[in-house]
C-alpha cells in the first residue's frame, strides 16, 4: 500500500506557493549563532500567516560545509548544528499540521569527498564495487572537452587522488566527486536515502544538478539519455510506493532542453524556468516586454500533470547563463555596476537591492511572479525586502540571517554577535533596525502585508496555477498584457486579464479583447467593476510600474433558473446528438451513456486545451461535439471523432479514443490515468472516470490487432503491407512514446510504432500514402517500412499508421548539434583556423562525410518517389507552363507579404536587423528579376514528383552508420491537397540547405552562451562548416540523382529555381522569427539579403 502524503490533491504543487529557506539562516533556538529546526518550528506560525503552502529547505545534512551544504557527508541524518532527526520529524509534523508541505534537497549527482562512500572508494581496489561508487579513470583525457562549470575555481573536471592512484570525476568543486550511476548500487543507495525521508513524510524532493548524473564519452556529459532512464526509475519508485509526492528538477538550461526532464509526465513533476528570471529583470530595466514574450514563446508545452517553477531570486546568483553575451553585459551594467556584485556567470544580489529598493518595482515583479503560468517560489526575506551584503564571499551575501525584529542580532539569535554564522545586515538602509518582520507586521502598509494579501488573492484563483497563457500584443511595448484562462472539472471557468506597466512613467494602452466582448472585467484586488468589454479596443491607463488583474466575468444571468430542471431542458432542447446512438446504448459504445456523453462534451474543451497535440490553443473553443464513434473489438474503448468549433466559426476534427472506468476499479487505475482524465461523472451514485484510452494497454493491443488483421467495420477499414509484417508483433508490450508532439505514438517493443493521428483531415494522410508507396512499390530501404494503417470509411481520413520500429540514436538535428558543439569546442581549444585544410579535415571531416551521405540518401528518396508507376498519385510529370505560373504566383505572394510585414515592424528591430531589413526592402525591385528567371521552356525545369514536403534535419533518424528519412506528412499548416501536389524535388533540397544554416548558427549560439565572450574563431568555423556542408550535400545529391537526368532541371534553370525556393523558404522563416523569436530574425534576414543580392 502506498504511503500517504500530507496533501490529498495529486496536483497540489500546481496551486502551491513555495518558500525557500535555509535552516541555518532562519532562527536560532539554542543561542549558538546558527539557525536550527527548533528555531524554524517557532516561526511556522509566521509562515502560515504569510500564506505560503510549501517549505523548501536547503540541504541540512551533515556536511563539511564547503558548498553551503551541497557537499553531503551523510544522506540519512541531520547536521548536528541544526538539530536531530527527531527535531526534523517534529518540524515536519508541525508544518503538516499547518497545511504546509515540505520539500527537501536530494543531491545525488555528487557527495562530499568526506562521505564514507568516497573514503572507502579511494582505498578499495580498482574495479571493485566500492571503488565504482564514483567515476574514476587512469587518464584525465576521458570525456575530453566537457565544459567546466565553476570556471572561477576549477581547471579540470578530473582530480588526481594519491590514495586511489586514479583521477576522479567532478562536475562541480573538486571536493564533490560525482557518483557513478552506471553502478546499479549507486541508484539503490540513492533510493534508500530517498525512502528514508519520504517515509518520514517529506512531500517533495528537489533533484539537484540532474543533467549531469550520467557521463558518456563523445558527448557533453549533460542530458544524456541514460540520465533520463535513472530519473524515470526514481519516479517509478516514488509512484509505486508513495502518494502525491513531488519531484522538482534543477536543470539550468533552455526550456527546450529542460522539457525532456518532464518526460511523458513520468520524470519530474516540476522544473525551474531559469531563463525567465533574468528576462523579467531585463524587461523591467529596458521598459520593454519583448524579453519576456520572447522567452515564453520559446517555452514548449509540458505534460498536463507537470508545472514550471518560477522565481525572482534564490540562494544562488541571479544566473545569466541563459542569455546572450550582449544581454549578459547589459544585465551586469544595469544591475551589478560594482564588480563585487558579480559571481560566476551571474549577479549575487537580493530582490530589493536589485530594483533600488523601489516598492512599486518590487510589487510589479511579484505580480508577474504570482500571475505567470507556474508555481511561484519565494526566497526567505524577500517578503520584507531584505538587503544583501556583497562583502561576504561566494553567494553568502544573500544568505544572511533572517531579520525578525530590531533587537540584538535582528532577533535571529541571542548569541554573542561574533558567534553568528554570518553577520546580520546593519547599514542604515537595509539594516535590521529598518527592515524586520516585527516592524512590518505592525505597519499595515508594509511590503509584508502587501505580500500576504497578494498570496491570499492568488490562492483564491486556481487559474494562476493551472490556466493557459496567451499574450496580448498591444502597440505599446512598455505594457505587458496576458490572459490566463482555465476551465475546471466542475465546469466553472476562470479568465483573468493581467496588465503590467513596465515603465517608470504612466502609459496608455488599448487592448484587443473583442473575443471577450460582453464580459465584465472585475478588478480583483478591490472587486471593482470596470466597463464591460465591447468589440472595440479596450482602453486602459496605467500608473508607473502598476499592474492590473481583471477577472473577465460572464455577465450574471438575469433570470434565476432551476439548476436541475435547467440542466435537463438545456440538454434535451439544445443538443443534436445522434438519436440512434443515444437511444440504443446497448447496441453501440455501451460505456458511454447519454448523460455521460453530454457531460463529456462539456468537459472536452478544457481537456483539449491541455493536450500537447491540440494545435489551436490560442483559439477560443465554442463547443465540442462527439461526431463519430467506432468500436474497436476487445478494446473496452471507443475511437471518437470530435468536432471542435471555435468562436470565429472554424471547425477542426480531432481523434480521441475514450475509455471509462467505474466504481471500485477506479482506485486501481487512478494513478496511471490521472494525467489524462477527461471527466469524473456521477450517475446513479456510481462514479465513472472517462480518460484518453491511449493509456489503456488493452486498447493499444486491440488497435494493433485490428490493424494487422486488416479488420473492417461499419466505420473503419485497415490495410496492411503483408511482406513487411514482423511475425510476433502481437506478443510485445506497448508504451506511449514521448517524442511526438502533434499526434500520439504507441511503441510496440522494438518491433513497431503505431501513430494515432489526432487532428484529422479529409482524405488519406500523405505520410501513410508515401510510406506505403516507398515500401511496396519503390522498395526504398532508408525509411521505416509501412506495416499497416487504419482509415475512417466516411471520408478516408487516416486514423492510425503502423510502421516498422527503426532503432536510432536520435534525430538528425540532435546529431548535428552535438557534432558541431564538439567541433567548435575543439577548434577553440586548439585555436585552429578553419581555413587550414588539415585542421578542417581533422575536426569536421567525418561530419562532412556524413552530410554527403545525407545528400545521397535524399537523392535516392527522390529517385524512389519517381519510380515509374501507373498510379496517378505518384507518376512523375514534366513541368508545364501552368506549373511555372503557379510557382511564380506562390513565391511572389509570399515574398511581398513578408516584405510588407518587415516594413511595418521596422521600428521594433535591433539596429543591425533594421539595417539589413532596409537593405532587403531596397531590393524589392529585384523580385521581377527573380520571377523572370522562372520563365521559359517548362521542360527545362525537370520533373514534378511527390516529394517529402517538410524536409529538414529533424526529419532524419541517425542510426549507427546511416540515416533514415521519416515523416512524409508535409507541412501540417497546409491543406491536404497542397501537400499531395507534385513539386520539384529541389524544394526538399532547399529545405535541407536552410536546415544546415540553422544548425550552424544554433550550435554557435549555444556555444557562445556558455563562453564569456564573443568567439570570432568559432564564428569562422560556423561559416566554414555551413559552406562545406552545403557544397558536400549538393555535390553528393547531384551525383546520385544523375541516374535519372530528366528529373533535374537544366543547370541555369536549376540554379534559378533553387534560389527561388530558398528565398521562399527564407521568407517563411523570417515571418516565423518576427512573430515568435525576434532575436533570431538576423539569420533569415541575412540569407534573404544575400539571395536577393544575387538576383540583381
Amino acid at each position: 500500500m502506498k504511503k500517504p502524503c500530507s496533501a490529498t490533491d495529486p496536483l497540489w504543487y500546481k496551486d502551491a506557493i513555495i518558500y525557500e529557506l535555509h535552516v541555518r539562516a532562519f532562527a536560532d533556538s539554542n543561542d549558538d549563532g546558527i539557525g536550527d529546526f527548533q528555531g524554524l518550528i517557532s516561526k511556522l506560525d509566521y509562515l502560515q500567516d504569510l500564506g505560503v503552502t510549501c517549505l523548501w529547505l536547503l540541504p541540512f545534512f551533515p556536511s563539511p560545509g564547503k558548498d553551503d551544504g551541497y557537499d553531503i557527508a551523510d544522506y540519512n541524518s541531520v547536521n548536528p548544528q541544526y538539530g536531530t532527526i527527531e527535531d526534523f520529524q517534529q518540524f515536519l509534523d508541525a508544518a503538516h499540521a499547518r497545511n504546509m508541505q515540505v520539500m527537501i534537497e536530494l543531491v545525488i549527482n555528487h557527495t562530499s569527498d568526506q562521505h564514507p562512500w568516497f573514503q572507502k572508494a579511494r582505498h578499495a581496489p580498482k574495479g571493485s564495487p566500492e571503488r565504482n561508487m564514483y567515476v574514476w579513470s587512469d587518464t584525465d583525457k576521458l570525456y575530453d572537452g566537457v565544459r567546466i562549470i565553476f570556471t572561477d575555481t576549477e581547471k579540470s573536471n578530473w582530480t588526481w587522488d594519491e590514495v586511489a592512484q586514479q583521477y576522479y570525476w567532478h562536475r562541480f568543486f573538486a571536493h564533490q566527486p560525482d557518483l557513478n550511476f552506471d553502478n546499479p548500487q549507486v541508484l539503490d543507495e540513492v533510493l534508500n536515502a530517498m525512502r528514508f525521508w519520504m517515509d518520514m513524510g517529506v512531500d517533495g524532493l528537489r533533484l539537484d544538478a540532474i543533467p549531469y548524473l550520467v557521463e558518456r564519452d563523445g558527448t557533453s556529459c549533460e542530458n544524456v539519455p541514460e540520465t533520463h532512464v535513472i530519473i524515470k526509475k526514481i519516479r517509478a519508485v516514488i509512484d509505486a510506493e508513495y502518494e502525491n509526492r513531488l519531484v522538482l528538477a534543477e536543470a539550468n538550461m533552455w526550456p527546450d532542453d529542460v522539457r525532456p526532464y518532464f518526460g511523458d509526465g513520468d520524470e519530474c513533476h516540476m522544473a525551474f524556468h531559469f531563463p525567465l528570471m533574468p528576462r523579467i529583470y531585463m524587461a523591467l530595466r529596458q521598459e520593454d516586454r519583448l524579453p519576456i514574450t520572447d522567452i515564453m514563446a520559446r517555452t514548449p508545452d509540458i505534460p498536463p500533470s507537470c508545472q514550471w517553477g518560477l522565481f525572482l531570486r534564490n540562494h544562488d546568483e541571479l544566473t545569466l547563463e541563459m542569455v546572450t553575451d550582449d544581454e549578459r553585459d547589459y544585465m551586469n551594467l544595469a544591475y551589478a555596476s560594482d564588480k563585487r556584485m558579480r559571481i560566476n556567470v551571474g549577479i549575487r544580489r537580493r530582490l530589493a537591492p536589485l530594483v533600488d529598493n523601489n516598492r512599486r518595482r518590487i510589487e510589479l515583479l511579484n505580480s508577474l511572479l504570482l500571475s505567470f503560468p507556474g508555481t511561484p517560489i519565494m526566497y526567505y526575506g524577500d517578503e520584507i525586502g531584505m538587503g544583501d551584503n556583497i562583502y561576504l564571499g561566494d553567494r553568502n551575501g544573500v544568505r544572511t540571517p533572517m531579520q525578525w525584529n530590531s533587537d540584538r542580532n535582528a532577533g535571529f539569535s541571542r548569541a554573542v554577535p561574533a558567534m553568528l554564522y554570518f553577520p546580520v545586515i546593519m547599514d542604515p538602509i537595509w539594516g535590521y533596525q529598518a527592515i524586520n518582520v516585527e516592524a512590518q507586521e505592525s505597519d499595515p502598509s508594509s511590503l509584508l502585508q502587501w505580500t500576504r494579501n497578494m498570496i491570499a488573492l492568488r490562492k483564491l484563483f486556481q487559474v494562476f496555477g493551472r490556466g493557459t497563457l496567451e499574450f496580448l500584443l498591444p502597440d505599446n511595448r512598455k505594457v505587458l498584457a496576458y490572459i490566463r484562462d482555465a476551465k475546471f472539472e466542475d465546469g466553472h471557468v476562470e479568465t483573468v486579464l493581467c496588465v503590467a506597466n513596465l515603465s517608470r512613467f504612466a502609459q496608455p494602452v488599448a487592448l484587443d479583447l473583442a473575443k471577450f466582448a460582453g464580459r465584465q472585467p472585475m478588478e480583483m484586488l478591490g472587486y471593482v467593476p470596470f466597463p464591460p468589454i465591447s468589440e472595440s479596443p479596450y482602453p486602459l491607463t496605467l500608473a508607473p510600474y502598476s499592474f492590473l488583474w481583471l477577472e473577465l466575468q460572464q455577465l450574471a444571468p438575469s433570470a434565476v433558473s432551476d439548476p436541475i430542471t435547467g440542466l435537463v431542458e438545456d440538454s434535451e432542447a439544445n443538443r443534436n446528438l445522434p438519436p440512434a446512438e443515444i437511444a440504443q446504448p446497448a447496441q453501440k459504445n455501451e460505456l458511454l451513456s447519454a448523460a455521460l456523453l453530454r457531460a463529456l462534451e462539456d468537459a472536452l474543451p478544457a481537456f483539449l486545451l491541455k493536450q500537447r497535440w491540440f494545435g489551436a490553443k490560442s483559439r477560443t473553443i465554442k463547443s465540442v461535439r462527439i461526431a463519430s464513434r467506432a468500436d474497436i473489438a476487445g478494446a473496452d474503448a471507443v475511437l471518437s471523432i470530435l468536432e471542435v468549433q471555435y468562436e470565429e466559426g472554424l471547425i477542426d476534427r480531432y481523434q480521441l479514443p475514450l475509455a471509462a472506468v467505474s466504481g471500485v476499479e477506479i482506485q486501481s487505475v487512478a494513478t496511471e490515468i490521472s494525467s489524462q482524465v477527461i471527466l469524473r461523472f456521477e450517475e446513479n451514485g456510481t462514479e465513472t472516470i472517462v480518460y484518453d484510452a491511449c493509456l489503456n494497454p488493452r486498447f493499444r493491443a486491440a488497435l494493433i490487432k485490428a490493424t494487422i488483421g486488416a479488420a473492417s467495420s461499419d466505420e473503419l477499414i485497415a490495410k496492411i503491407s503483408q511482406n513487411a509484417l514482423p511475425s510476433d508483433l502481437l506478443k510485445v508490450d506497448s508504451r506511449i512514446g514521448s517524442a511526438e508532439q502533434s499526434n500520439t505514438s504507441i511503441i510496440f517493443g522494438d518491433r513497431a510504432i503505431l501513430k494515432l493521428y489526432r487532428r484529422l483531415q479529409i482524405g488519406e494522410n500523405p505520410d501513410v500514402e508515401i510510406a506505403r508507396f516507398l515500401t511496396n512499390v519503390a522498395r526504398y530501404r532508408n525509411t521505416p517500412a509501412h506495416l499497416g494503417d487504419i482509415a475512417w470509411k466516411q471520408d478516408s481520413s487516416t486514423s492510425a499508421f503502423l510502421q516498422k520500429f527503426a532503432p536510432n540514436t536520435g534525430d538528425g538535428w540532435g546529431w548535428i548539434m552535438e557534432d558541431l558543439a564538439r567541433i567548435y569546442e575543439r577548434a577553440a581549444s586548439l585555436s585552429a583556423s578553419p581555413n587550414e585544410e588539415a585542421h578542417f579535415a581533422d575536426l569536421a571531416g567525418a561530419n562532412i562525410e556524413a552530410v554527403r551521405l545525407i545528400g545521397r540518401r535524399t537523392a535516392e528518396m527522390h529517385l524512389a518517389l519517381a519510380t515509374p508507376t501507373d498510379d496517378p498519385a505518384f507518376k512523375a510529370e514534366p513541368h508545364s507552363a501552368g506549373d511555372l505560373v503557379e510557382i511564380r504566383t506562390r513565391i511572389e505572394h509570399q515574398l511581398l507579404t513578408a516584405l510588407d510585414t518587415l516594413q511595418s515592424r521596422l521600428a521594433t528591430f535591433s539596429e543591425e536587423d533594421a539595417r539589413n531589413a532596409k537593405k532587403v526592402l531596397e531590393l524589392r525591385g529585384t523580385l521581377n528579376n527573380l520571377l523572370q528567371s522562372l520563365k521559359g521552356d517548362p521542360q527545362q525545369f525537370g520533373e514534378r514528383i511527390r516529394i517529402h514536403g517538410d524536409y529538414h534535419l529533424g526529419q532524419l533518424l541517425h542510426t549507427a552508420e546511416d540515416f533514415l528519412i521519416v515523416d512524409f506528412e508535409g507541412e501540417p499548416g497546409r491543406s491536404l491537397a497542397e501537400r499531395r501536389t507534385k513539386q520539384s524535388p529541389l524544394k526538399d533540397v532547399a529545405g535541407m540547405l536552410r536546415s544546415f544554416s540553422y544548425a550552424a548558427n544554433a550550435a554557435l549560439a549555444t556555444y557562445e552562451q556558455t563562453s564569456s565572450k564573443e568567439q570570432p574563431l568559432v564564428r569562422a568555423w560556423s561559416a566554414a562548416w555551413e559552406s562545406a556542408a552545403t557544397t558536400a550535400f549538393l555535390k553528393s545529391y547531384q551525383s546520385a540523382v544523375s541516374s535519372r537526368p530528366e528529373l533535374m532541371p537544366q543547370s541555369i534553370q536549376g540554379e534559378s529555381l533553387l534560389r527561388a525556393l530558398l528565398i521562399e523558404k527564407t521568407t517563411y522563416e523570417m515571418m516565423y522569427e518576427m512573430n515568435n523569436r525576434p532575436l533570431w530574425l538576423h539569420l533569415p534576414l541575412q540569407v534573404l539579403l544575400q539571395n536577393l543580392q544575387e538576383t540583381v
Partner: protein
Amino acid sequence: MATSIGNDISNTDPEGERELSQAALSSDLLVCLPPMVRETREHATAAVLAAFPTASLRIAVTELDTLSADPTQSLLVPYEEARNQTGWALHVTDYLAAATVARKYDKQHVLLLGSDAPSELLLQSLARGLTQSHADVVMPRLQTSATDGLVNSALLYPMTRALLGQDIRFPLPHNIGLSRRALERLASEAQREVSAGRSDSLLWPVSVATAAGYSVRQLDSNEHLPVPAVTDFNRLFAEVIGSLLADTEARAINWQRSRYVAPAHSAGEPLATSAQDPDADVVSMVEGFRVAYANLLPIWSLVLPPQSLLALKKLAPVPPQAFLFPPELWARVVYDFALAFHLRTINRNHLLGALTPLYLAWAASHIRCAAGDATEAERLVHATAAAFEAEKPYFVSRWRWPDRFNP
C-alpha cells in the same frame, strides 16, 4: 430570488397510487432517529412505518433492544457510534454515524432526524425530495414566530443566501434528507473535525453541497424550530457563529465565485402562520448595546471601519421605541467581523463576544419593527438578507484586500 411553493404530491395522489409511491420512496431509504427513551422511540418508529410501510426500509436507532417483541424489530438497525445528545441541531457525530449505517445497509437515501416526533408528512416530503426530485440535500423550512430563531434570521440565513447563493431559510438543520453521496461528503468533513479533536462541531450541509456542485432543496414544513436546551446564550452564540465564520473562511474560494441566488424550490406542506409572540425585552437589549458601546468601542475599532463606527455612534443614543438597526449597517458589521475572524485580528472568542451586543441591537430593532407580526418579521428577515446580498461586493473587496485604511 424565488421561493415558490410547489405541489404537495401527498395531498393529491389517489389512494391506490399512494401506496405504490410510498413503497418506491422507501425502497432504498434509511431513517436515522435521534437518541430517545424507549416509549418515545416506539412512537417515532410507528410514525416512520406509517410514512413508509415497506419491509425494505431500515430505521437506525441508538439503543437497540434485541430481546424486544416489537413486530417492527426486524426493520431496526443499530448505530454503532454514539450520536449527538444535544438535539437542537445535527453535529458531526450524527453524520458520521449515519454514513456508517448507510454504508453497511447500502442505502442511497438517508433521512437524518433530530426530532423525536417527526410527522408522517415531513418524512414523506423529505424522502420525496430525494427520490423524485433527485436532490442531494433536502431541508425543511420551519415555522417561527416573530421572535423565534433570530440568530438564524440575523446571520445564518442572510450569510447563506448572500454568500452561497442558496435561499435556504434554516441552513443549520435539525432534520435533513441526504443522498448517499452528500452524506459521504459530509461524513468526510465530519471525520476531519473529529480527527482534529472537534467532535462537538457543527456542519453546514448547504455549504458542503454547494461546494460540491450538488443540488439543494427546501420544503415547507409545519415543524417548529427546536429550542436549544442551553441556558448560556453567549456560549451558544459563540459556538454557532464561530462555526459559521470558520466555514466562511474555509470556503472563501467557493463563495467568491457565486454571483446570484439559486432558487430553493420550496415544496411540501402549506405554510401556517404562527400566532405565538412571546414578550421580549427590547429595552434591556438596547441598553445592553449602549453599555457595550461605552466599553467595547476600542475592540470594535479594531474590526470596523470609521463609517460603521460613526453609524453605531449615532445609533447608541436612540431610545428603544425608535431604535432601528439598518440592515445595510448590520450586513457590513457582520462582514467586517467575519473578516476579523479570518485575519485573527483579536482572539476569536473575544471577537465573538464583541459581536454579541451588536447582534442584540439588531434583534431589538427586529423585534420592535416586527411588532409581533410573523409575516412582517419574515419580510424584515428577507430585507436583511437582501442587504447582505447588496453588500457582498464590499465583503469580497475587504476579504481580498484587507487594508485598514478604508472608508
